[in-house]
C-alpha cells in the first residue's frame, strides 16, 4: 500500500443556488435557500412539491447534446473543476461518476418502446459516463458508481483508491442527478419529503424539532483529484488533501433506517482509520442531515458513537436546508463546502434550523456562519439500500487555518 497524498486541485458545482462553486459558496455563506416550487413537470397529485431546481442553465448547448439533463450538469461542473488543467494530461485523466438515476429519462423512454440511446454492448450508466469522459477528452479509466445518495462521496472514495493504487495520477470525481417525473413519483412514495404542516410552508429543517422531511434537488458537484507530485509538477494550487474514506453498507434493511446509526458510524471510523486520524483530530462535520425524522437522530447517534466526548467541541452543519437533497450530487456538493471551509475557516449555517431536536445532541451551526480553526473535516453521506460513505479532508499544510477570511 502506497502513501501517496491525494489532493483536491479543482472544483465545480451546479445546484439550485446557481452555477459555479462561488455561487454555491456565497449562497451557503449568506444562509440562502435555493428551494422552491417544483415546475419541471406536473406533480400529478403528489402532495410534495418543494424542490431544488437548477435555473438559468443552458442545457441545450451543443457540446452537451445527447447527454441527460443530469450529465449536462456534470459536464459543466467537470469543466469548471478542470480549469487550468493541461490538455496534455487528459489522456490519462480518470473519470468517476456517481449518480442515483443517471440517464433515467432515456432508460424510461427505452422501456416505453423507444430505442436504446446507448451502445447495445454497454449499459446506460456506463455509456453516459463514457460520453462525459469523451467530451472532456479524458482518456483514463472511467467508472460509474451508483450507491443512491451516497454516490457522490463514494465517487471521491473510489477515485482516492484508484490514485493511491497507481491506476491514475489525476481524475474527476463527479456526483450528479436531475429531477424527473418517475423518480419524483417514487421518492414521494417513500414518504420522506417535507410537506406543509401547521400553517407553515414546507421546508427542510435539518436537526430541528419540527423537521418533517427533505426536499430533493438536482445538480452536480465535481472534485479534481491528483497526486501531490502531479499537482506540484504542473504548478497547481492545492486546495485540500483527501485524507481518507470509508464506504460500507448497513446490511440490515433495504429501505428502513439503521436507527442506531451503527453502519454510518462504522463508515466514519473507516474513514478516520484510513486517514490515520483520531476522532479528536476532526474539527468539523458536514452532516448528511436530510431533515427526516429518523435519519437525523440516527446520524446524531452515529456521531456520538464515534466522537464520544469530543463531539461537544465539533461544529456540525447540514447544507440541505439551503440546497435540498441533491441525491447523487449531495456528497459532492457537500465536499466542496468542506474544502471551502478548510480554506476559508468558515462553516456555513444550517438553514431551516430553528429549535434543535434534543434527540440530536450535536453542536449544529445555526443562524449565521461560524468562524473556526479547521484542519480536518468529515463529510457524511448515506442512501437508500443502506449505503454509507464518509470522506475526510485535511488542509494541505496540515495546520489549522485560523484566518477566518
Amino acid at each position, binding site marked *: 500500500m502506497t502513501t501517496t497524498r491525494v489532493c483536491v486541485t479543482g472544483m465545480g458545482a451546479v445546484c439550485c443556488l446557481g452555477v459555479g462553486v462561488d455561487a454555491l459558496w456565497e449562497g451557503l455563506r449568506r444562509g440562502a435557500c435555493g428551494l422552491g416550487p417544483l415546475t419541471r413537470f406536473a406533480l400529478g397529485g403528489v402532495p410534495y412539491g418543494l424542490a431544488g431546481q437548477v435555473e438559468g442553465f443552458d442545457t441545450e448547448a451543443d457540446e452537451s447534446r445527447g447527454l441527460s439533463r443530469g450529465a449536462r450538469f456534470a459536464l459543466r461542473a467537470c469543466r469548471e473543476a478542470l480549469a487550468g488543467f493541461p490538455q496534455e494530461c487528459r489522456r490519462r485523466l480518470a473519470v468517476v461518476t456517481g449518480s442515483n438515476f443517471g440517464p433515467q429519462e432515456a432508460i424510461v423512454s427505452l422501456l416505453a418502446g423507444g430505442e436504446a440511446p446507448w451502445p447495445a454492448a*454497454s449499459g446506460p450508466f456506463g455509456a453516459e459516463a463514457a460520453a462525459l469522459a469523451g467530451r472532456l477528452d479524458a482518456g483514463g479509466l472511467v467508472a460509474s458508481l451508483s450507491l443512491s445518495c451516497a454516490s457522490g462521496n463514494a465517487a471521491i472514495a473510489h477515485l482516492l483508491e484508484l490514485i493511491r493504487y497507481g491506476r491514475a495520477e489525476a481524475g474527476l470525481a463527479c456526483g450528479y442527478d436531475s429531477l424527473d417525473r418517475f423518480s419524483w413519483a417514487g421518492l414521494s412514495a417513500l414518504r420522506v419529503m417535507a410537506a406543509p404542516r401547521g400553517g407553515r410552508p414546507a421546508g427542510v429543517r435539518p436537526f430541528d424539532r419540527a423537521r418533517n422531511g427533505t426536499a430533493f434537488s438536482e445538480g452536480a458537484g465535481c472534485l479534481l483529484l491528483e497526486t501531490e507530485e502531479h499537482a506540484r509538477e504542473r504548478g497547481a494550487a492545492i486546495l485540500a488533501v483527501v485524507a481518507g474514506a470509508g464506504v460500507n453498507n448497513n446490511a440490515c434493511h433495504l429501505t428502513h433506517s439503521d436507527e442506531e446509526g451503527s453502519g454510518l458510524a462504522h463508515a466514519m471510523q473507516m474513514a478516520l482509520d484510513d486517514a490515520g486520524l483520531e476522532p479528536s483530530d476532526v474539527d468539523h462535520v458536514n452532516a448528511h442531515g436530510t431533515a427526516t425524522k429518523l435519519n437525523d437522530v440516527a446520524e446524531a447517534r452515529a456521531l456520538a458513537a464515534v466522537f464520544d466526548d469530543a463531539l461537544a467541541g465539533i461544529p456540525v452543519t447540514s447544507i440541505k436546508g439551503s440546497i435540498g437533497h441533491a441525491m447523487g450530487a449531495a456528497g459532492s456538493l457537500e465536499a466542496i463546502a468542506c474544502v471551502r471551509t478548510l480554506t476559508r475557516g468558515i462553516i456555513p449555517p444550517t438553514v431551516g434550523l430553528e429549535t434543535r431536536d434534543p434527540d440530536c445532541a450535536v453542536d449544529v451551526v445555526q443562524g449565521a456562519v461560524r468562524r473556526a480553526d479547521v484542519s480536518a473535516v468529515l463529510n457524511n453521506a448515506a442512501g437508500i439500500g443502506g449505503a454509507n460513505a464518509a470522506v475526510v479532508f485535511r488542509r494541505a499544510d496540515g495546520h489549522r487555518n485560523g484566518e477566518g477570511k
Partner: protein
Amino acid sequence: MEEAPVHPDRVYVSGMGVLTGLADNVEDLARVLAERSIVRRTDRTQRELPRRPLLLPPFDLADFLETRRPYLDTQSRCALAAAAMALDNAAVEPDEVDPLLCGLHYANSLGNLDTLEAFRRAVDEKGMRLASPVLFSHAYPNTTASLLAIEFALAGVHQNVCGGRLCGAQALQGALMALDAGQADMILAGGADAVAPELLERMWQGAPGNLPPGQAAAFLVLETQDSVERREGYAFCELASVVCMGTGGAATAAGMAEALEAAVDAAIAEAAMWDGDVGLVACCGAPAEDSPAAQAEGLALRRFSQVPKVGAAPFVGNVFAASFPLECALAAEAVSSGRVPADVVLWGEKGGVEVWVEGRPEPLLGGAALVVGCSPEEVAAAVLVAM
C-alpha cells in the same frame, strides 16, 4: 503507473459461483464448454453461434437461499443465487468471519430494468400519486448490491459499479485494492445482468451485428491469505492482479490493442510473473466480431499465440457485467484443476490478423491464467496463479 503496487498479503479465490444459460456452476460450465467447442480450426463457418438471447433456465431461489422475499427483480434473483453458490463453495460459516470485515464489490451494466418497467407502467396507468414504494425501492441501480449485503451480512466495504461491459473487472479490481489496503478480510466480488427476454431481444435487434445478449451472474469470494488460513478454508488459486485502464480515447483497433497490451503488461508485472508463466488466456471477447475491439484483442494477444484460449461469450452470450468475473471463474477453475477447460477456437482470421489460435484439451502448461477484456472505452486484464 511507474511502479507496481506492493501487495502486503496474497489474495486468494476461495469460492466461486456462476449462473449462466449453460450451467449453474463453474465445473459444469467448463465441461459443457468443452463439449460444445465445435470449432477445431480457424474456420468461422463451422461455428454454431446462438441466434437468440441466451436465457437462464427457470430456477427456484429457494434452492439457494432460505430467506423468502416477497419481491425480487430478475437481476437480484440471479445475483443472490450465484452469490449463495460462491459463499457455499467457500464454506464460509457465519461465526468464522466478522461482518464488518466482509464486503461486497458488485457490478451491473443494465440495472433492474424489469422492475423499472413495472414501476413505469404503474405510474403511467395509475398516476404518480399511487406509485409503488416497493417497486421503486427495487428499481434503484444499487438495490441488488444492498440485497446481497443484507442477505449475506456483508457490512464492510461496499461498492456498486454500473458501467459498461467490463465493469465486472472494475468490481474485482476494487475488491483487490480494498483487500490489499487491509480494509477487509473477505469480499464477495462479481457481477450480474439479467433482464426480460423481450427487452434483451429489442436491444439486440438494435445492433444486429452483435453477439446476442444473455443472462448470467458470476462471483468470486476473494479472501486474504490470513483469513483463509485462520478459518482453514480452501484456496482455489491466487488472484494476483487486476488492472483496468481507459483506452485513451482510441477509436481504432491499434489504439485499443496498445491499451490492452499495457494492461496485460501491468497485470503480469504486478503478479510478479512473465509471459512464459501464462498457460491459458480467458477472453471476454467483443460483442461484435467485426468491431475494432475484437481486432484489438487479437492484436494484443499475438504474443500468446501458442497459449490455449477460452471464452464463454459465444456460448452464454454477452452477459455484460458478469462477463469478466465469469472468465475469471473459468480461469480459476483451470489453474486450480490444472486443465484447460475447453479446446475452443472462437475467432478466425480478421484483416490478415490471426485473432485466435487453436487450443488443446491438455493439461495447463504454466502456472498462471490471464483474463482479458477489451471495449472501446476500457480494457482489463487479470492474472490468476495456481497455488
